């Protein structure tokens, strides 16, 4: 295998690709890296203990989720993912975690979120997701559940991370 690579490299070197286009190639590579840094800056940000992780019970089949779907699930507009029923569990509404989650996902304050649920109850009888102070324990014990926690509180194996906010 390494011999093959070596011969390919030699071949490329032999055709003069490296010599002639090296500067252009490196330029493109640099441009690509800068582009990734600029547009996907978040993905290479250092992990912070205060990151909010979207976590699911280990029985949930999906391995990633979009922010739009997180919003829909926690607003109870969507109740399944990839054909699997999904049950949202919120942190207590007076917790910092819940406030930050509500702001990041819905762009709303806690009072605005509460107002939204009061309206939904009257309009369509829709009730907000259940709440528990320890969302990790809730996820560990509830099949098909989805919730969120701080990275610093997460313990490997207890739940599956599907998105970092």
């Amino acid at each position, binding site marked *: 295998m390494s011999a093959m690579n070596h011969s390919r490299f030699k071949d490329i070197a032999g055709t003069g690709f490296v010599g002639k286009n090296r500067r252009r190639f490196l330029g493109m590579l640099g441009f690509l890296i800068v582009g990734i840094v600029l547009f996907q800056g978040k993905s290479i940000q250092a992990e912070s203990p205060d990151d909010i992780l979207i976590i699911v019970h280990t029985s949930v089949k999906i391995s990633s989720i*979009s*922010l*739009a*779907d997180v919003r*829909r699930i926690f607003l109870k*507009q*969507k*109740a*399944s993912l990839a054909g699997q*029923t999904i*049950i949202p*569990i919120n942190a207590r509404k007076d917790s910092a975690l819940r406030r930050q989650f509500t702001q990041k996902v819905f762009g709303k*304050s806690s*009072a*605005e979120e*509460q*107002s939204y*649920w*009061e*309206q939904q*109850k*009257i*309009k*369509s*009888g829709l*009730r907000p997701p*259940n*709440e*528990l102070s320890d969302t*990790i*324990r*809730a996820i*560990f*014990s*509830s099949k098909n559940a989805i919730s969120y926690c701080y990275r610093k509180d997460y*313990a490997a194996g*207890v739940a599956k991370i599907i998105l970092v906010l």
Partner: protein
Amino acid sequence: MMQQVILTGFVLMSLVVVGPVSAQNTELVSQPTPPGETSASGQTTIDEKSVPTPLDSQSVAARLEALTAALRAQKNETDALKQKAVVQDRELEKLSNELSVMSEEHEQISLSQLEAEALDTVKRFSVYGFMDVQFTAAFPQQKNGSPDWSSPIFIETQRRSTFHQAGVNLYFKSELTSTLETLVETQFTYQPNGDISSYPKVVHSNGGGTIEAGEWVRTSTSVRKPYSGDLRLGGVWIERAQIDWKPRDWLNIRMGRFLSPFGIWHEDHGSPVRLTTHEPFIISNNYLPNAQTGIMVLGKIFAGNNADFDYAVTLSNGRGPADEYVDLDSNKALGLRARVNITLRDFSVSAGAYGYMGQYTDNRNALHVYTNATNSGFDPTVEQPTQWIETVTSKYDEKILATDLQINFKGIQLFGEYVRGQKKYIVPTEIFAVTPLFVGASPDVDAIEPNQISQAWYGVAAYQLPFTKALKDIKITPFVGFDHLEPSDVYSYDSVSLFLGGINVKPSPYVTIKTGAYCIIPKDKTVLGDNTWFWDSQIAVSF
């Protein structure tokens, strides 16, 4: 060296003395057991040929050495096994400790029974509701120095200033399984007490005389309590009572009494949610049935991260005098709702439509009995001498199209609806019509309701002031709007327009305070009088 010599001598002596006995024993044992193998008693058999004779000292020494070596090897093996056992014991203890720690961790991370019950998503039952109190004042045009209340525009509840309360709405919600739930919404209302079910129409002819039809009927539910004063009985109105089975986001089957799926104002439904106090003409004129009894299939389909599509198909009894529980014709009403919602950051738009077609039927039943000539028995000439005979008193087909549009952008709300309805009579309702006067004909006591097309529309613009944070989550939203009604294309005299403006304040998620003014502008002022102003204030609370 000396020790070896002594040991060898001792072993030789032992063999001389013990040898024959051992050989005898070996004989006995060796018969059933093959040489060199272990017997059932655990003794090792020795090949007879290998048993050294007492005189064969060399082979005895060799044998002794072999046995000593074997003994040492066995001792070493035993020591190794003992050491292994010690190591295994330690490992076992370590594993046991780990298991104990894991059990404790599992216990810590698992939910308590109370917590698990709090999270339980099935069999959750909840009761909640809302209510409101409103104050309305009308400011009619002055006539001869005093307000003129005679305009037909004033229905009784709008005359003068009055406090009023529609009722108290209570919800009963039960989530039976993760896909099955029920919702019952009731309104405890003061009605039917005070309801005016009929009023007289009196035509005064300039030529002398009057034409009068109808009578004043005000319902009274006043009853005397056995040991104290009177009380007025109210009613319980079941606004909706539905069973929902929702196996998928795109498939929800709803059965029972459900709200008709149209518009914005109607879906907002309750006073704590609605922006203004004024109810649009689309709603107050019952263009579409408020609720229907039957089956509705609805769902939501997501298209990417920014768009979704709602649909609903309704099949119901349609409208009738008691459509909640009986359809007086076999023609079921059919409806189709479609709505698209698009959200792009702070901007969102949704556009929807609902088409409905159904048949209204009212009838009268009488039991007819056919007797013989002497009234002493049934008429033998009639095949069925007792019969229910049904007479249809009113029947019409209706087709209605309702559309709605809502745009939100950074606190700005724009929304509006348009409804157009067509009524085609099959058995027209008899009415006392004064309307022929508009076309130069006489009032008609026995007139019939004509086929007609009606339409109405409204639009509202509102802006939530950007001081919510500064005001500690108090939302203040001023609004302006217009409303227009054309009840009939046959007689256009009762078309009206309305302009409104006001403010909506939400000091908490549970409380909504609204106040506003609106002006009704009749199209034909000779019939409905001049422009009239109203002022409304309302406080609505959800609980």
